[in-house]
């Protein structure tokens, strides 16, 4: 599935139990903070910011939008939690930034610094999101068309 996406748009992929939001990184850089060090993540204009949350509906969409807005427009840092941190199961959104993201439901949310795998609900497990100059290619979405929805709004 191709999702056309411009710089000033945000796309939401809504499933039964989870929502994924996509927006372009616009070539910005991002601060990635682990317990030991800070790494700066440089991106290409077509790279994508992918945020994931459990649940669906307007409240979830607003939360995802807020997260991506803080990162891209306010320069908020990405925080990586140490493994086993008590905050991990309490996280409401997790984010991956780069040219490729694969959703997984078998990882511990917020504890991994790499930017190519992202925690998501079970229905999105294995879903792949590839950035392109005109938007995103979404592959392996098994639930597509079964109560799922795609919403594109102004960022």
């Amino acid at each position, binding site marked *: 599935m191709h999702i056309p996406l411009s710089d000033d748009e945000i796309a939401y992929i809504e499933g039964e139990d989870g929502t994924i939001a996509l927006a372009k990184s616009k*070539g910005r*850089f991002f*601060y*990635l903070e*682990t317990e030991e*060090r*800070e*790494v*700066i*993540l*440089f*991106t*290409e204009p077509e790279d994508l910011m992918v945020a*994931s949350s459990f649940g669906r509906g307007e409240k979830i969409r607003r939360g995802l939008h807020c*997260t991506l807005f*803080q*990162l891209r427009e306010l*320069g*908020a*840092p*990405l*925080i*990586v*939690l140490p493994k086993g941190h008590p905050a991990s199961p309490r*996280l409401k*959104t*997790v*984010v*991956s*930034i780069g040219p490729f993201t694969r959703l*997984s439901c*078998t*990882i*511990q*949310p*917020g*504890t*991994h*610094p*790499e*930017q*190519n*795998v*992202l*925690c*998501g609900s079970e229905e999105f497990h294995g879903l792949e999101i590839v950035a392109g100059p005109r938007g995103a290619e979404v592959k392996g979405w098994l639930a597509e068309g079964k109560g799922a929805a795609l919403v594109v709004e102004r960022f």
Partner: protein
Amino acid sequence: MCTVGGGPDIGEVETLAARDYECLDCKSKFQGMGRRPMCPPVNQGM
């Protein structure tokens, strides 16, 4: 306030492929990953 998700817990070794850089202007050193490194501003925040 925001968090990242990343590599799987099982089967893959976690790596953070960051490289060391030094800004030619201000000489600040930083670690970066990505294809177009640039000097980041320092001491931005609250």
